[in-house]
């Protein structure tokens, strides 16, 4: 195994509900320029490998890989797509750097859901075409079932799930790139439409347009460039089953396995003590709690109780999604994990402004690919 890998540059656009003024290529270009500027590199000369994370159906273009290189400075260079969350792309870049054959890697992910006419229809195409699709399930309906099961088994209440949303969207108020920040109260949840009981509209992270680019390098290159990196000390990724019928709807084994892989690599034995804060997937309100539990950061078997005493607030004992998460910043499909990573790096660099956590040294970042998948990736970052 070769030397350590660190993050030396990050770039992101504003996350906005609509972006009629720019194309997805312009979003990618903006994030890339910012990231290269941050890293102090020239993509045409310095970058050895580029990874993009995208799915054709979301892009509305088959073989979307075709449209990646030009706007990120990657034409006629090693570029490939990973059909996965942005964090899967980070895992890929890390593997490539650790071979010792590459010095600098770039990971890109973006989305422009404001162009999507029928996002529910697209997401439903992710279901098994033989067993599930004939049932005409809406993806949020499956989430409603899961939320019900999760709350029933763990004792977490719907109000505690709502408090996750209130926390995240409030955190996002101080995040200058967030697209879905607002102040909510529990009362708002009582007056909002139910999507699939107990899941309400407010429990679902709403989509935004945007792009994120991350620059990674190996240790010797970082020394050459004289950069202060954020180290990736652990990485893990894992899949559970693709079938809805045979999976556990409460305990996410695949998330635990990915986390254990990352903890092992980072040499972490007691994650709750050794990690300062977490940026994790919160596509749905209950998912933040379910993921915390699987990541062994949930403070026992009912993380809901810890919501009530403010444990996961920015000023709490273990801040979760201080950036605002996907609920507060907006859901970005394959770019969601990279948005979490971007904000975790800002925290570890001490650039999180009013949301800054004191002495934040180690962070956990997790991404999940949304229903109906059981696909996750986990990274441990260290300042």
């Amino acid at each position, binding site marked *: *195994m*070769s030397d350590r890998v660190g993050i030396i540059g990050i770039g992101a656009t504003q996350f906005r509900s609509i972006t009629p003024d720019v194309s997805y290529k312009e979003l990618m270009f903006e994030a890339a320029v910012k990231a290269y500027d941050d890293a102090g590199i020239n993509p045409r000369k310095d970058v050895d490998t580029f990874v993009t994370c995208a*799915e*054709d*159906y*979301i892009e*509305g*273009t*088959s*073989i979307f*890989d*075709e*449209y*990646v*290189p*030009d706007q990120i400075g990657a*034409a*006629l*260079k*090693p*570029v*490939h*797509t*990973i*059909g*996965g969350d942005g964090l899967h792309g980070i*895992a*890929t870049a*890390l*593997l*490539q750097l*650790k*071979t*010792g*054959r590459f010095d600098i890697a770039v990971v890109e992910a973006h989305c422009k859901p404001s162009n999507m006419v029928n996002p529910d229809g697209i*997401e439903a*195409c*992710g279901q*098994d*075409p*033989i067993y599930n699709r004939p049932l005409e399930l809406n993806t949020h309906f499956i989430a409603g079932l899961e939320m019900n099961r999760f709350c029933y088994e763990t004792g977490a209440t719907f109000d505690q799930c709502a408090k996750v949303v209130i926390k995240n969207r409030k955190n996002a108020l101080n995040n200058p790139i967030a697209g879905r920040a607002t102040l909510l109260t529990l009362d708002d949840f009582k007056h909002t439409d139910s999507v699939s009981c107990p899941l309400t509209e407010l429990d679902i992270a709403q989509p935004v347009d945007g792009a994120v680019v991350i620059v990674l390098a190996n240790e010797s290159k970082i020394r050459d460039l004289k950069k202060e990196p954020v180290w990736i000390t652990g*990485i*893990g*990724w*894992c*899949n*559970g*089953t*693709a*079938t809805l019928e045979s999976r556990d709807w409460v305990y996410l*084994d*695949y998330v635990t396995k*990915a986390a254990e*892989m990352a903890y092992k*690599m980072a040499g972490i034995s007691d994650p709750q003590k050794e990690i300062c804060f977490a940026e994790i997937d919160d596509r749905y309100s209950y998912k933040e709690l379910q993921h915390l539990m699987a990541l062994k950061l949930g403070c026992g078997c009912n993380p809901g109780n810890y919501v009530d005493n403010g444990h996961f607030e920015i000023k709490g004992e273990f801040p979760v999604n201080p950036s605002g998460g996907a609920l507060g910043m907006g859901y970005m499909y394959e770019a969601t994990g990279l948005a979490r990573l971007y904000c975790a790096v800002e925290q570890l660099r001490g650039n999180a402004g009013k949301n800054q956590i004191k002495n934040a040294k180690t962070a956990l970042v997790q991404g999940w*690919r949304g229903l*109906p*998948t*059981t*696909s996750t990736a986990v990274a441990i970052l260290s300042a």
Partner: protein
Amino acid sequence: MGNRVAIVGAGMTKFVRRAQETGKELCYEAAKMALESCDMTLDQIDAVALGTAPDTFDGVHMKGEYLSDGAGAFGKPYMRSYVGGGTGVFSVAQGWYHIASGLIDTCLVICEEKMSSYRPHPQGAFMTIFDHTTERPLKPNLLWIFALEMNRYMNTYGLRKEDIALVAVKNKNNALDNPCAQIAKAVTVKDILNSEVLAWPVQRLDVSPVSDGAVALILTNETIARRVTNKPVWVEGVGWSLETSYWTNRDLCYPRYVEEAARMAYKMAGITDPRHQIHIAEPYDPFDYKELHHLEGLMLAGKGEAPQMTVDGITQRDGELPVCPSGGLLGVGNPIAAAGLMKLAELFWQLRGEAGKRQVARKVKRGVAQAWGDLMQVGTVVVVGV
């Protein structure tokens, strides 16, 4: 500089026009064969790397996730890589970096394609690969743009259609000895020149068919490879390169991206004189002219000189540089990603001397496989040796 990576097992389904099996079942079949070929079990696999081309073929969004359990990825680190038609060969590069990183010891590399789900014909799926603003309104079709490229290639070097057709003759005949082949046939140049014109100069027998199929390889680090087999095939070099999306702005007569990918792989493999250091090649041949184009990109032939190599019989199975002894895409079939990985499976069998009736005449110690894809835009290259 990274750990050595070996291929220790291979499995392949039949390539057919319309498989009765689902995509998951095709994956399962190929993976099981690959594991059994080296007496390994799924428990011994640390990670799974999947390659499969557009989701539109199957009509399944996030097709990689759908295929995951069929591909043996339950409870394992699993990722799907994607570079269009170049995916099959790239997936071995993906498996390589998993293991060369030192984080993973064994990796199942699997490629699957089920094009028959798309009706009436998967060409329709390719309508959406073009730029939505500048190209889609013109309603282009893959055969047309490849006809442009073939025309350009022929015009630049003054090539004859008869010479290019020799590639299809060779590959379709080679495929007669491949038990997995879909369209093996003893054909002559005359048959090809008399076949239906699709988009001049492309005729029906110049083109590979629509196929379903899956291929799997087992990759391991050196320690495990030596335990599992006494004939490991080493991954000596990998390379990939993606050209600009604006294909209308570049000269189509030469695949520069293939050359870039080849240079990357050759550098890693320590190859300075490819024509002499490489003994066998499996370049991507979805069209007969593409094998020639790619031989030039791989620097195994000078620019515009690959057709003459074919005329001279150098690329025959008993020639000096056997090319596509498997039968290639033109003879075995073209389930996109699986077709690319089939090329590495073939090299695996050839280098181990296990290719049966397809075994090439000369002794071969090093081979190169290459695939091509996106908008005539990406080259992926893997060099393997014993």
